[in-house]
């Protein structure tokens, strides 16, 4: 595998998604593309680059991009975070939205849907607290193939047990020939759509809560700033942004500040709210 081919792939990924594939992460290219190699009957990257160059449409390039995206996810990833959501963040949002009893939540970079479904389970398991509320959860991802999986909501035995206890598995999923499939009750609470986080917002914003975990680390420089602008524009002025463990806004943006007493939760600053208004005006005009 030569550096030029790696660079071509990194440029393709960045052009299509804004995500970076720096030299330090290029070790995973071979593994990520191994399924595609087998399917195409090739053995190395240079052959793939040649095939893409000869291809008359962008289908192969899109498949390469989708294979390069890191779609790692599992149910209740970082349990402590979901415990905090259940015990502190959502109760606070419940107070702030007591008048309209509606919560709108965005799982940004949702991959195959486990995060959005985990949220849905969280609400269903606190049935009495949320009785009479409308909970709207939208999951988005730039990859069409993972959104198809998320919409179907069916998982292999390996996937379903990653993060779920046996009781939750039986309670919220049904065994079928397609795998373990999310119950209708969960599915009614979640919607999935293909969307690049660099593009204008899903139509249902502003959101009361945005989960954008383990996604910003793939963006740098101008694109990372654009993502923060999109998040600021999509979040209600008194809503919460949740980032992944090990991610922080500090040193990256002045639009968000850590929320006191909640790990990984951020609120908008005045600058963020101003940016939000500006972005929403631009999107409307466009």
């Amino acid at each position, binding site marked *: 595998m030569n550096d030029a081919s790696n660079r071509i792939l990194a440029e393709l990924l960045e052009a299509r998604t804004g995500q970076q594939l720096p030299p330090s992460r290029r070790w995973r290219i071979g593994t990520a593309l191994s399924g595609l190699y087998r399917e195409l009957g090739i053995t190395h990257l240079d052959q793939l680059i040649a095939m893409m160059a000869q291809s008359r449409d962008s289908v192969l390039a899109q498949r390469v991009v989708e294979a390069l995206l890191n779609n790692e996810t599992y149910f209740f990833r970082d349990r402590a975070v979901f415990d905090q959501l259940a015990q502190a963040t959502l109760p606070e949002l419940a107070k702030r939205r007591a008048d309209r009893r509606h919560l709108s939540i965005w799982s940004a970079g949702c991959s195959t849907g486990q995060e959005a479904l985990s949220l849905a389970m969280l609400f269903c398991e606190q049935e009495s607290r949320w009785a009479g509320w409308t909970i709207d959860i939208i999951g988005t991802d730039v990859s069409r193939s993972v959104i198809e999986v998320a919409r179907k909501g069916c998982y292999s*035995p390996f996937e379903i047990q990653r993060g779920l206890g*046996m009781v939750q598995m039986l309670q919220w999923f049904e065994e079928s020939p397609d795998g373990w499939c999310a119950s209708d009750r969960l599915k009614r609470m979640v919607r999935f759509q293909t969307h690049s986080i660099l593009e204008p917002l899903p139509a249902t914003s502003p959101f009361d809560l945005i989960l954008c975990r383990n996604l910003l680390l793939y963006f740098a420089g101008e694109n990372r700033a654009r993502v923060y602008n999109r998040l600021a524009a999509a979040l209600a002025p008194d809503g919460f942004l949740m980032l992944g463990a090990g991610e922080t806004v500090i040193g990256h943006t002045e639009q968000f500040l850590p929320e006191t007493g909640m790990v990984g939760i951020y609120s908008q600053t005045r600058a963020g709210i101003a940016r939000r208004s500006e972005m929403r005006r631009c999107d409307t005009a466009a």
Partner: protein
Amino acid sequence: MTSCLIVDDSRVIRKVSRHILEAMGFAVDEAGNGLEAIDFCQQAMPDLILLDWNMPVMSGIEFIKLLRSTDKGDRPKVVFCTTENDAAHIRAAIQAGANEYVMKPFDRETLQIKLQLIGIA
């Protein structure tokens, strides 16, 4: 140190599971079937039992039913670890007193999360 008994008739599975559990800080012992496991438990009740379903001499489900009916047999956390991955088997395991259920194949992270869920990791 938290003790774990691995009950599986496959030497390979026992070896892999031992490797994972020792890396997680458990003191590990092994048994090749349910009857051997009962003998072991009568001498020293472990904190955790990782249990296969299909085994010669005494199956996993027979073992857990017997274990739960013995003195102090309610103490160990029992996690089924099996290729039987349908809902009916999981329900039967719950009914027999299992604390968690891991379907093969699994990875270290999956097992670790399951053990966290039952408060043992």
